[in-house]
């Protein structure tokens, strides 16, 4: 089976790799280059909080054991807030919504305690998948001090180069266009309607590090603000990624071994069918 897959891959190699070359690719990369503003961030002291959430569940014989957690943590390891919820049965509201609510709550607890609050993920997913009540809460929290940004390492949005018939996400072309530190011109997206305007940039904090996508709420942002933002992110970043977000991710990650411990704590380890799920 695998051999036939490999053989097929060899046959389709040229076609598959066309995404990386050809006139269209070159055109988009050229466009990305022209959009790029070279800027080497300067070190600036700042207290940065990283927020991330995680959820996981295990199902067996109609039962679901679920856990949701979120954390806000500073670059020096100080935890601002830890939130979690767990249960047995069908989660309500669904786990993603609970996680999102916890992130907003963690953000609310952090905006006054940090110079800059970074949230792992995209503002798009918050706006597109959340209930109206959550969106209102989110925008209110972000606007309180205007010190909240959303940061992601990956992105699938094609807002900028979709019009050129791009196959990959915008981040792919920016990655191929430049290796130097800097950021793309601010892209303002008003498609989601009033109150949900998103400004986004792709940024590279250091030479040859992966790009990050930064999203800010609203349209009233300029390049000097982005420069200042990069300066603050630069100091406590590792391989071009804010360390506070790495800490937040490591801190709240709920693995299957964590679930296995919970199964044991609840005394569900001996239930028929429980073991297979966790292995």
């Amino acid at each position, binding site marked *: 089976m695998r051999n036939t897959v490999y053989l097929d891959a060899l046959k389709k190699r040229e076609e598959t790799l066309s995404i990386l070359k050809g006139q269209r690719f070159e055109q988009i990369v050229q466009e990305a280059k022209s959009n790029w503003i070279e800027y080497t961030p300067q070190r600036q002291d700042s207290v940065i909080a990283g927020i991330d959430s995680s959820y996981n569940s295990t199902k067996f014989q109609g039962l679901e054991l679920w856990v949701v957690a979120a954390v806000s943590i500073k*670059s*020096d*390891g*100080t935890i601002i807030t830890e939130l979690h919820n767990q249960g047995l049965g069908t989660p309500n509201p669904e786990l993603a919504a609970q996680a999102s609510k916890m992130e907003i709550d963690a953000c609310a607890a952090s905006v006054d305690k940090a110079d800059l609050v970074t949230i792992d993920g995209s503002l798009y997913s918050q706006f597109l998948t959340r209930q109206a009540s959550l969106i209102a809460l989110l925008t209110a929290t972000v606007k309180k001090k205007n010190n909240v940004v959303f940061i992601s390492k990956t992105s699938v949005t094609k807002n900028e180069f979709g019009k050129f018939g791009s196959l990959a996400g915008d981040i792919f072309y920016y990655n191929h266009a430049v290796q130097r530190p800097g950021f793309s011109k601010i892209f303002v997206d008003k498609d989601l309607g009033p109150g949900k305007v998103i400004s986004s940039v792709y940024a590279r904090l*250091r030479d040859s590090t992966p790009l990050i996508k930064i999203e800010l709420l609203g349209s009233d942002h300029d390049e000097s603000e982005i420069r200042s933002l990069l300066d603050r992110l630069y100091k*406590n*970043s*590792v*391989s071009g990624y804010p*360390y506070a977000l790495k*800490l937040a991710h*490591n801190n709240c990650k709920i693995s299957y071994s964590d679930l296995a411990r919970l199964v044991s704590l609840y005394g569900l380890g001996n239930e028929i069918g429980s073991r297979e799920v966790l292995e």
Partner: protein
Amino acid sequence: MNIGVVIGEAKPTEVTAQSIRPLSVGEYVIVDSQNGKLLGLVERSIVSSDALTDIRNFDEAMESKEVAELNTRDKNYKVKIGILGFLDKLQKGQAIVPAVPPLPGTSILEATQQDLGMIFAPRSKEWIRIGSLLRNSEIEAKININRIVSRHIGILAMTGMGKSNLVSLIAKQVSSLQGTLIIFDYHNDYTNLSVPKISVTDAKINPRLLQADKLAEVIELRENADKQQRVLRESFTASVRQAKDFWTALEEGVSAFGHTTKGYADSASRVLDKIDDAKHRFSDILDPDCGDPVDLIKEGRVNVLSVAELSERQANVGLSYYLQELLNDRKDSYWAKKGRKLSRNTTKFSSPLFVIIEEAHVFIPKGEHTDTKYWASKVAREGRKFGIGLGIVSQRPRNIDPNVLSQMGSLAIMKIVQDDDQQQIASAAESLSKDLLTQLSSLNIGDAVLVGQWVNLPSIVHVDEVKGKAIGSDLDAVAEWSESTKYKEIAAESTQGLIQKDLLMD
């Protein structure tokens, strides 16, 4: 003070703990278990950084270093602690390991002087100070001298790591207890040892007292020279042994055998050459008029018998003779005390002896027979009963006979780097854990791992330096060269002044 918490899987003999600070390997700690306080030894200490894990390049390392310094929770101090037994029992000399492991969550406490003092520095007379614990330096480290004499010791280390210093320290302590110590000194390391009433003599061999094959070794007849060996054997008669002029009588005997036995004239002639050679080269050592060489050893003193002038074969003959005689004397003394009638009228030593053999790998080699090995092995087996202790000192443990090494009830192991040596030690010392073994290569000069019966517990100690010792130290070649050049210049200058210029011109 609480310095850690037991985490993960715990066993009755070992636990893993998360500590508040990095703990040193060899440090003693208290495990405050549900069944009472346990004494633990840190066998492995691991420090890791969350930020500095999985680093892919230098830039990432530098950035991670910066954030790691900032993050107070970044460092992870994990230790593996070997459990040695209940503290109160150990203080009474009993090592009792708990049947139930300490529960995860159990506190790890700092060991205090009160906790450790009674274990490592008992106050009774047979315990002598040897130094202090390496990682708990305020605690004295003592060894039980009775156990050395009854169960033997091995002192093993690379050259220059403190073997002679430890031997000197033991010698000083034995001297202060009026004990009898005999050091076979192969490199004249102990002749300047500052010990009261020390007896330093050259080891002698009285050829009259040897068997013919041993005499052949001493005068360096080749082992496979069968005819020469026979000449000597046939000529070395009882009357020769008792002759007033031993060498002349032996030479006459050899000469006569050569003349009277067909086909042996050439061999007898070669034996005569060898005897003549030995008489001249080894006149200080081979002494037919020295009486019994064992008489050179004085009871109640430290005796340094120098074997530096002897070849390896001669030293081997000498050592085996001394060991044999000393063991036999102790046996006679023992049986005399039990009221048994002896073949000999008197014994030389009424109290236990302790014998130290330097360069043990030369005299007690692996895979090769030597007489010293035979007698050393016999002393190791029987010495406990008859009161003769053996100490073997070597920098090449892998070359020592494993049977003899394994009979050394106690070991002092200093820095050893070679894997072969470490493996040999591991197989000889059951109480040396793998983790302690790995520490051997990182020990510094004067540090030693003590295991076996002379200590209540395996311990890593820093041995006291013997003050005023002039032993085993390396040469200061640079200083000596410099001195030598200076004297040459002085000599040249002074001679130059004596030569008249006009004479040179003529």
